[in-house]
């Protein structure tokens, strides 16, 4: 157990964790950020996605020590109910959630993706999002939301 300082959503936090602790557990249990979610712990589903710098990473298998010196952004850091990020707003407008357990991964992944490709085609969206799993079958709405978000941010 050691002391570490990590920067999350624009604030520095001193946390107590062994360096091998996956970032996910530090975010959820120490900082009480519940946007990132535990789905598999195996890099297979993407429910735990956060941004490390500009990159969408899977926090369930990223040791907290890797977050040293790089800013972490979680779903909470993108926007709020009152002031949602354009991607969050598009997901809300398109009702792109059922149980919503995957929504964190979908929004964090697509936000990072849209920085790489600002006006993707539908096929590019589907290809980029295939590593993220949704079990309720909200795919149609997620694709539509990402398209709308790209437009809104253009």
């Amino acid at each position: 157990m050691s002391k570490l300082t990590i920067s999350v959503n624009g604030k520095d936090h001193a946390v107590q964790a062994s360096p091998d602790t996956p970032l996910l557990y530090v975010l959820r249990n120490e900082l009480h950020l519940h946007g990132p979610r535990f789905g598999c712990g195996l890099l297979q589903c993407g429910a735990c996605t956060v941004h490390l710098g500009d990159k969408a990473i899977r926090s369930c298998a990223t040791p907290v020590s890797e977050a040293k010196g790089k800013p972490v952004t979680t779903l909470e850091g993108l926007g709020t109910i009152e002031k949602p990020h354009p991607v969050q707003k598009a997901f809300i407008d398109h009702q792109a959630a059922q149980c919503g357990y995957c929504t964190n991964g979908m929004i964090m992944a697509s936000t990072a993706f849209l920085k790489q490709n600002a006006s993707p085609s539908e096929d590019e969206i589907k290809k980029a999002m295939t590593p993220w799993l949704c079990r309720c079958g909200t795919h149609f709405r997620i694709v539509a939301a990402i398209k709308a978000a790209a437009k809104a941010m253009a």
Partner: protein
Amino acid sequence: MTDTLPEGRRLSRRAFLSGTGAMIVAIGAPRLLDPKSAFGALSDSQIGPALVDPLQLDSWIAIRGDGTVTVFAGKVELGTGVMTTTIQLVADELDVALAKVNVVEGDTWQSPDQGFTAGSQSNKTQYALTGGVRQAAAEARLALLNMASKQLGAPVSQLTVSNGVVSVQGSSSTVSYAQLIGDKKFNLKQTGKAVPKTFEQYKIVGTSVARVDIPAKATGAFTYTQDVTVPGLVHARVVRPPTLDSQLVSIDGWPGRKQPAGVIKVVYKDNYVAVVAEQEWQAIKAAEALKVTWKVVPLPSFDDFYDDLQNLTPTTNRVLIDTKDVDTALAKAPKTVTATYRYPIQMHGSMGASASTASVEGNTATVWSSTQGVYQLRGAIATALGLPAQNVHVIYVEGSGCYGLNGADNVALDAAVISQMVGKPVRVQYMRADEHGWENFGQPYVISLKGGLDASGKVSAWDYTAWTASRGGRPGPPANLASGVLLGFPENPLAASPPATPSQAPNFVDGSNSGPSYIIPSQRLVTHSGVHSFMAGPLRSPSRIQNTFANESFIDELAYAAGADPVAFRLQHLTDQRLSDVITLAAKMANWQPGPAAAKVGKGRYLTGRGIAGMLYEGNNGYNAAVFEVTVDRVTGKVAVDRVWSAQDCGPALNPDGMRAQAEGCLMQTISRSLIEEVKWDPTGISSLDWSSYPVIRFNGMPKTFDFQIIDRKDQPVWGAGEVLITNGPAAIANAIFDATGVRLRQLPFTPARVKAALKG
């Protein structure tokens, strides 16, 4: 540290274990008077009411001093939008703004017992004329109008309500609901005299109101069961044996190293083992590294599974229909068709591995769970803890989408039992393999069908025999769940065979869609069920998807044998106009070209075909028909669903966009279950333990287009929309593959290997 559940809605209940010890409040003490709210009771009482009396209006609805309305619902939000349709209903009945309605769902101390939230029954139940929220809201409105009438000195007939304010027509005198009764109880028994509004009168019901939970879900402000924490919480992980019937020999600790940091205790009983630690990561690592020796009881053969299923000694035999003339009719038929269909074990596979937090203190327990039945889970936990049911407070908090009996109940049982064993509040989070390998799987089926065609090409006889197996099921008994079995609780035998009193009338459709929806004069339907090695439970469209796969494939096979068009052939055998209507509409949407299937099988690598399926779900819970267009890659055997057209009739459409969302979800899941999903195992255990060994559909498997139309029937009762389209998928896809290739697939899933083998013949 406390958790506030989503802002402004429902559940702003605080985690309440303030550590001040138990203050026992008399049973039946007022629960709803404090404006701090419905949840006030949690902070100062340890034993709940004996009964949340469904006959009492206060059990359903409370009007707050701030003009908000709280509904206490026994049907919970599983991610399907039921909370929103419940809010629509109450806002419309009471004439209050949508934003003023909150829902407290699934709480054994606060909400009436409405059974399980399952079987696409929620809206059907809440919108029924009696027995659910619609009746309660109408009763509340009547009571409020009677009060207003006295207060305003005007007859009820002259009162109107807008935004929770009652006015007298042609006068400026008004009184609000909050002024009439805010924070006070109605103290009324439901009279049964209040008449709910009609669907023509509703203004909010029937519109696509946005889901109330999505903004919080999209911003990280939502609290799932996985997020519930209480002060002093410790973390546990279960340590499962290789197979369910294996026996614990010894717990050998962590040989060669000292006890890992943070470990509080290794708890065990019978064949049940779990590790408790201060921090979550400590619990994960310690549980992974713990050495446990098991005497492994192997699983039966995977390869012989379907044969074993048919040869299983059945514990339950049911004759559903026997017109007593099937053998004669088949013998007389100029043409007969026989086919056997096989449906694998599939899993719910929830995105979020299940979790639960529980606190057992002395003789009381509080359990936060995403169960589909708080009362039924309460029974299981009370038995496991040795407490009276009344002392167990089960609080529903939404989890990952469940689609039936996923790991939610099992993990709640774990949390409660471990909390009792360590004397601390405990959060148990399943790892992926715990969820995948230990949930109650969907039931496998073998269904054998024989059919006869008469000289005119109509179906004269239908002979159905099904074999299935299960073990466990929903709570009640703890051993209906894997952890209950491991803890040594007795398992319930399956129901004994009922006396053979079959319906002698054909075309009786039971709740399991065992029989076809078609008018066939001679019918015999027999089912055999037995016990097998795998825990089983309802999985979205339980038994109905399996039966519909067989029945709607077989009607296509009969149509082909008769040289008939699959759509026309179905319509010829139907008298149910609403079913005919959805089939006709789906065919029209797809621009269906009449003619026998597989009339034009191409010669190239990629073959395209279309198939249809339609049914009345559960015999009384929604019509759907769907046309699927597939492309089969003859080289790889890969099947892709390209385009889908579907028509649906669930009575009045309560929220058309929500209904469409359910149809979309059904579509993705039914493609997944038809093409990909099958639980696998070897003698040493379940091998489908993650998303690579049990893959499901992803974005790259989406159809290109999905056209969906609703037949909105405001004059009919509300039926469920959550499980209809999914039920048609396997047969519609099998029928489309046949149309494309001329080859009939009768075993799910239609994997590339299986399709390729079938094409080679």
